């Protein structure tokens, strides 16, 4: 009797879990479904799907503000991603390898602080800096350079976290072996360390690229006249009201991201399989040719 109620309880618990997971996933994905479905709507109406059409995609492509914003955001995100990974690589190296130097505590604080600082504050203080610099040096004007700087400040913090966790797992004996074989420290870094942390560099780049491509607050503070990123254009449209071309843009973005993630996972899976195969092949050959020293 007791075991029966227990079974019943366990059954209920299992289903409660599935139900809860399902509901929260629904909550997380409803907006995405909404964006995709209503990007194909034939009218401007929001609540009813009146028929299938591609007119919002046409409207999107002929909207010069959105298209220009897209290319600007792409450029900003590409540069931000690259700069953030380079700087994040330096910072992660310092945090993992140089455990003692003057000002390490300050450095640790500075690296992590942008992660928890509201973007409004980062944007405002950087804007004040940029205005001060512009007044004394006459350069740079608010626009591309200032936006990239702001995004990189935030991106570097995220890149550091990602690279740091990978770097701390790297087997240092490989580097020591390379040193013993006569590599200079720079060679060790490029020939041994860098290939080892390459996956983290890729994920850090993707993460910072996305953050930059998506950022609206810092761009709003740091952009100048005539320089508007895609999120800024979307934000200004969104404040005015419903515009299904934005849904079309969203759908294209969702498609691109899903495609990217699927490709990435397939590549990773293949890599893992190849690695497994090589490892098992290596262990097999060891068995086929036993170490003569051990045999003797």
């Amino acid at each position: 009797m007791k075991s029966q109620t227990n079974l019943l309880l366990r059954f209920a618990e299992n289903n409660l879990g599935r139900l809860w997971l399902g509901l929260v996933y629904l909550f997380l994905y409803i907006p995405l479904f909404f964006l995709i479905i209503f990007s194909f709507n034939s009218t401007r109406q929001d609540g009813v799907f009146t028929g299938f059409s591609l007119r919002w995609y046409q409207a999107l492509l002929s909207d010069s503000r959105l298209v220009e914003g897209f290319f600007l955001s792409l450029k900003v995100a590409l540069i931000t991603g690259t700069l953030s990974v380079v700087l994040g690589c330096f910072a992660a190296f310092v945090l993992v390898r140089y455990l003692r130097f003057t000002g390490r505590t300050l450095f640790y604080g500075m690296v992590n602080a942008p992660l928890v600082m509201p973007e409004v504050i980062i944007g405002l203080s950087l804007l004040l800096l940029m205005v001060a610099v512009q007044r004394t040096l006459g350069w740079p004007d608010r626009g591309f350079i200032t936006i990239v700087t702001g995004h990189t400040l935030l991106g570097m913090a995220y890149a550091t976290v990602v690279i740091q966790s990978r770097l701390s797992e790297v087997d240092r004996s490989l580097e020591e072996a390379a040193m013993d074989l006569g590599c200079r420290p720079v060679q060790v870094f490029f020939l041994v360390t860098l290939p080892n942390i390459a996956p983290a560099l890729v994920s850090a780049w993707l993460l910072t690229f996305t953050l930059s491509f998506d950022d609206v607050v810092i761009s709003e503070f740091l952009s100048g006249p005539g320089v508007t990123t895609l999120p800024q254009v979307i934000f200004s449209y969104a404040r005015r009201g419903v515009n299904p071309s934005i849904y079309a843009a969203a759908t294209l973005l969702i498609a691109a991201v899903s495609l990217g993630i699927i490709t990435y996972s397939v590549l990773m899976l293949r890599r893992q399989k190849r690695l497994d195969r090589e490892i098992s092949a290596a262990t097999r050959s060891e068995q086929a040719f036993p170490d003569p020293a051990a045999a003797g």
Partner: protein
Amino acid sequence: MKVSSWFQGFLFNLGRRFVIGVPYVWLLLFFVLPFLILLRISVTDMGNGVDPFAPLIDAMPGSWRIKLRHENYFSIFSDAAQGAVGGLGGGFGNTIYMEAYAISLKYALLTTLSCLLIGYPFAYFLARSRPSVRPALLMLVMLPFWTSFLLRVYAWKGILADQGVLNNLLLALGIIQEPVVMLYTNVSMLVGMTYVYCPFMILPLYANLVKMDFRLLEAAHDLGASRWKAFWLITVPLSKSGIIAGSMLVFIPSVGEFVIPSLLGGAENIMIGRVVWDEMFSSNNWPRAAALAVVMIVLILVPLAFYYRASSGRGAHAES
């Protein structure tokens, strides 16, 4: 030989300095310096036509004085029209700024609570799911994060509108008779903030719960504790650090949130991020915007200090 090894040591040191120096200088220039400028602007004169970058120190032959202004801070906390000018008069606490801080804290707190309420069971069930499906389930949580946050918030606008999908659905099901006003209210704002910040609560909680030894629950069960009691006495205390980490990750950015209130919030719920923005770009009152930002940093530093103490305490515990 000796010279060359000395030279190599010199190069090594140089390389080390370079590696430390590059990110250090970058952060000093673009993180610390802006804050110093922010602090400095916040104490300048806010009169019209005054250059906020004018030197703080008046140098006259034979004497100098520092022009530090506290009006920016006083005007945040007390209404000069009601109280004595520059003093803590009767208008204390009744300014729109104080109200904005209160609203920001309230919504940040509510967001944190609702994220915890939704996220904790979710993370718990995720951690107890079969290990083979876990990576896929986790990936599904992360996936929306890779698509634009702005667009996902924007979608809620269409869903919650008076003639929107949700109202139409509820009308069709006969649950409501006429459309419920949801958009531009505190409900829509809370939904939007919970939606955006939920993954930030789920991920640290999951990372914490997945490491938990569930045999402890079985042991408690064998010793006669009910499932509910075991959950409260074992699972919740063990996941305390995860709860704190997740709450911080939700609470801190929520306080300064700017985009979600502008898109989904109503006119009566002006949060502090928006006020800073308006002071900066609409009123062009840079010193006050800077002062508001400084007070916001102080407000955030309090829970942050608490968090660092909790997490460093956890680190020490793990090492012992």
